[in-house]
């Protein structure tokens, strides 16, 4: 009986204790910060399994980060302060974006109005830019190659992102991510409407590109010629490298969150500030992110990387999908 009683107590506590919006907001950031390496570990593990290897532990990224933070920082002779500041700026950006997007809640949090989709996009862009700048600072050929490629393809994927934003704006008349998710939750016909499917698909391709996945880039490859994002971090070491790795894991998780919570499956979010529902939302988010990760791992294993100059075809496909979404909306309803 005692245990039941205790359980009731917990239950009451769970329902009764409301988290303040500011606390949830912090929790959003923490969720991303803490669980991003776990997600990376999960994907790496699954990929290995799909290839018939045992693979690293799921927790491996944490060990890697811990080890890197203990190491000393080596700065190339010619590199200036940008080399050091770049990774930090990027990391800060990745910590800021979760304030703006629906990570855990259906209702907008106080700072959620601080920036719209474009604002989030700018922050991600700033992060990418500072990483590229830091890489270029080293003078290392591969790092520079990586940053120039990343900038080029980033510019090419930009139109698709813009059109996705337009489509969202046409559906909701705002470009706040919360409202797109709310619109999708509102009815099933909203989810199966062609425009929504198209933008979800286009955004999926954008995520594939931005997380450096096949068919754009080999994720775990060691071949420098095909590298884009990975090549940028080649010259960094120690805590700075740890920040970059952690940052890229967070970026990946942020994009997944956008994909699931805004477009694909905006369900399972906390409707109120009750502790229980927030905890459930964290778990649901992890579940969804793991599912998306599984899909990406499967894609990684079933397609081959495009040749570098064929990547434009991939970009063209993403652009096609997003522009069709806008057109279908334009013609009424869609």
């Amino acid at each position, binding site marked *: 009986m005692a245990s039941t009683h205790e359980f009731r107590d917990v239950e009451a506590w769970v329902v009764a204790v409301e988290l303040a919006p500011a606390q949830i907001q912090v929790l959003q950031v923490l969720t991303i910060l803490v669980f991003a390496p776990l997600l990376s570990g999960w994907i790496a593990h699954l990929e290995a399994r799909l290839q018939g290897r045992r693979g690293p532990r799921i927790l491996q990224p944490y060990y890697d980060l811990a080890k890197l933070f203990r190491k000393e920082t080596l700065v190339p002779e010619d590199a200036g302060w940008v080399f050091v500041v770049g990774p930090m700026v990027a990391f800060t950006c990745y910590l800021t974006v979760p304030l703006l997007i629906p990570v855990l809640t259906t209702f907008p949090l106080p700072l959620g109005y601080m920036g719209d989709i474009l604002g989030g996009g700018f922050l991600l862009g700033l992060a990418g830019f500072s990483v590229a700048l830091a890489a270029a600072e080293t003078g290392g050929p591969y790092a520079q190659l990586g940053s120039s490629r990343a900038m080029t393809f980033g510019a090419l994927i930009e139109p698709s992102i813009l059109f996705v934003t337009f489509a969202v704006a046409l559906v909701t*008349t705002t470009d706040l991510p919360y409202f797109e998710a709310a619109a999708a939750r509102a009815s099933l016909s909203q989810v199966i*409407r*062609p425009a929504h499917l*198209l933008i979800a698909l286009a955004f999926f391709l954008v995520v594939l590109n931005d997380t450096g996945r096949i068919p754009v880039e080999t994720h775990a490859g060691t071949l420098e010629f095909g590298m884009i994002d990975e090549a940028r971090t080649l010259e960094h070491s120690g805590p700075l490298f740890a920040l970059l790795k952690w940052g890229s894991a967070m970026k990946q998780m942020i994009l997944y969150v956008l994909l699931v919570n805004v477009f694909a499956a905006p369900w399972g979010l906390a409707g109120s500030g009750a502790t229980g529902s927030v905890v459930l939302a964290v778990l649901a988010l992890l579940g969804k992110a793991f599912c998306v990760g599984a899909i990406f791992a499967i894609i990684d294993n079933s397609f081959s990387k495009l040749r570098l100059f064929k990547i434009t*075809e991939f970009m063209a496909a993403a*652009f*096609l999908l997003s522009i069709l979404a806008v057109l279908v*909306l334009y013609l009424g*309803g869609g």
Partner: protein
Amino acid sequence: MAAVPAVPSIFSGSTEAIALVVLLTEFAMLRAHLSRSQVRLYAFQSLAVTALAVFVAATKHVDQLYVLAGFSFVLKVVVVPSVVSRLLRDARVDIASSHRFGVATMVLLAIALSVFGFFVVGSLPVHSKSLPAPALGLAAAVILVAFLLVTLRSDVVSQAVGFFALENGVSVASLVVAAGLPLIVEVAFLFDLLVAVVVFGLLMRIHHGRARTLSTEALDRLQG
């Protein structure tokens, strides 16, 4: 564009989704490098059109559309692709079809054309309940992109497939515009396809027999 577009009904939403599949397949055709995969894509596209016919027949209770869907399945999904692939097998030529432009350029051109089609349809003040305007716009885009497929490719198979794709676009348009077509128009429709198979098959054979290739690069004697 000012007002918030209403969420479409399940009927028009699904119609549009299928029409979208048709258009996207056509873009895939534009990208496809092998004649063989183009033919497969065509079969898939026709399957989508057939599905659309069945869907419209079921939701609008037009029984004759089932017959049309059956015919179109047999002809477009089975007969035409198998005829063309047999031709490809017999031809034993390089099955890589040629591009005049890079894929990305072609896709951008096709996007521009589709936008044009959309705006033309969008300028029509037709907003009846029975006519999902986006699906009509998509059909127009399919037709326009088919023109691109014909003009930008220089091999017989791609050109023929481009024509067949145009035919599919007309099918989509007719299905969304006029679900209860009088039988005579349907007959006209099937007839069109039958004719296309016969003539194109024959001419492709003749062309291959004479030129020993399925490329149209050699067809530049008649000018001016």
